């Protein structure tokens, strides 16, 4: 099966649409990195001054030197000294190194690419009639199905990784340094404070945010096999991905809480405040949304959709 997957991947890498996706990712990364680097406003400075109770002298000292290195060094010592006073989540909000956070906004748009890949990778074989040749290469239908699914997921992961690497590269270029890798960021769990490498933390968050992207791509794959319609698969997946959360919010106002047991509210993890829960939904509607629940729901619906589409793939006549 590994050989099967490697052959499929080799072919997909050479396809024009995949190269086009990569070029779009590189272009968008370049634009976002450039503008997010340039974009730090006076208001943000003021916020930090207020939140961190800086004196005017301290503020002047930091900015008159003009160096972000000094700025960061100052804050690192400041954090250690006055941990209780500082609202840590806003500490680095002004630092343009942290425009890396914008990667999560771009990552959500990768769902569009993953939907296109998922809906076309196996269905295009049906359209060409080449699915018959795949069923005749000595592999069972189950293996063929699994190979295409794994290839689809692998392609989505590769696109994500390209985005991550592109962001890293462009930010290094714009910052003209490798500070991104050196930075430590404090995270508070109750009263305990731990410092983690910012780059590693971002990568782990990126991996976490990749799960809904992989899910919606796979969902599109499954729907395309069940209905044998690329248009329907694309439309349904796009609708759920783009409007799902809006519709969900609207339905919650009518107290339709069982929707929290669907996968719809979990298609975008970036909406989760502090990566723990959605405070707004929890308070207003009494729902229990969290990334943990999201992972469970996405896994559950992935397995259900997998078996349903597999059944269709195994049992349906190939004409």
């Amino acid at each position, binding site marked *: 099966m590994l050989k099967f997957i490697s*052959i499929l991947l080799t*072919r997909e890498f050479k396809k024009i649409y995949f190269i086009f996706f990569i070029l779009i990712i590189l272009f968008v990364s370049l634009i976002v990195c450039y503008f997010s680097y340039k974009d730090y406003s006076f208001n943000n400075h003021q916020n930090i001054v207020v939140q961190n109770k800086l004196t005017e002298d301290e503020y002047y000292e930091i900015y008159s030197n003009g160096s972000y290195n000094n700025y960061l060094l100052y804050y690192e010592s400041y954090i250690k000294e006055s941990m209780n006073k500082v609202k840590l989540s806003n500490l680095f909000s002004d630092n343009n190194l942290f425009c890396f956070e914008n990667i999560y906004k771009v990552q959500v748009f990768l769902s569009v690419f993953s939907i296109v890949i998922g809906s076309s990778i196996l269905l295009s074989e049906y359209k060409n*009639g080449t699915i*018959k040749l795949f*069923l*005749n290469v000595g592999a*069972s239908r189950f293996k063929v199905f699994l190979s295409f699914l794994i290839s689809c997921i692998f392609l989505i992961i590769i696109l994500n990784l390209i985005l991550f690497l592109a962001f890293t590269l462009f930010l290094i270029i714009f910052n003209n340094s490798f500070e991104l890798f050196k930075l430590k960021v404090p995270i508070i769990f109750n009263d305990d404070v731990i410092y983690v490498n910012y780059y590693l933390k971002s990568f782990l968050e990126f991996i976490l945010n990749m799960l809904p992207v992989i899910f919606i791509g796979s969902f599109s794959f499954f729907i395309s096999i069940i209905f044998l319609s690329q248009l329907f698969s694309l439309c349904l997946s796009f609708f759920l991905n783009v409007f799902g959360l809006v519709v969900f919010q609207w339905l919650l106002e009518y107290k339709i809480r069982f929707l929290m047991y669907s996968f719809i509210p979990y298609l975008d993890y970036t909406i989760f405040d502090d990566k723990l829960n959605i405070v707004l939904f929890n308070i207003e509607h009494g729902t229990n949304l969290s990334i943990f629940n999201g992972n469970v729901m996405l896994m559950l619906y992935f397995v259900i959709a997998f078996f349903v589409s597999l059944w269709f793939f195994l049992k349906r*006549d*190939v004409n």
Partner: protein
Amino acid sequence: MKKYLVIKNLRKQIRDNAILQNINLQVKKGEIVGIVGLNGSGKTTLLKCILGFVNYDGGIFIDGKNVLCNKLHNFGFIIENPNLYLHSSGWDNIKFWSKFYKNVDLKYVKSLCDSFNLDLRKKVNKYSLGMKQKLAIILSLINKPELLLLDEPTNGLDMKNIFLLRNVLLTLKDTTILISSHDINELCKICNRLIFINKGKIVKVLDKSSFLVYSESELINFLESNYA
């Protein structure tokens, strides 16, 4: 000689419409069998059943193994339209599918392409129907199949290429071949046996010694016969 392909009580039904009814057939290894029938008589469905593309009742055994349970086959086939990647070149198509099989002899494949006079550098969507058919024939032979199932292989081919195809098929000594075609004359030239199918039933089976006796019009009459 040992029976290579055995079909027992094969039935295929789509809703209330019986496509194949109680098909029983035994084919020896290396035999070339022609399947003849009117449009919609079930020829293509029979080949699809053997390939495991469609579900059916009954049993199809190759070398004593059930087709549906054992997927490790070494088949070659052309079913209906040539199944090709239209936006790739002919050579890319060959290269891609050759990766799935072991011991693909690309020299043999190239020699086939040369003999069919096929330009492999062109994209397939610029091929004529005949060129696509030739490429599909070459792809069906790429893995040196034990069983070759050809549905209307002469579609779009000119007389020269039909002659070439006939010669190629006759050189495949160990390959069992089932050919479905409307061209009875052509089938008579290469087949060891002819099977006449009408309304999903085998209505007549003729050996080479017997079908050479009949005239073309008599053979055509068998197509509409209802007896087995």
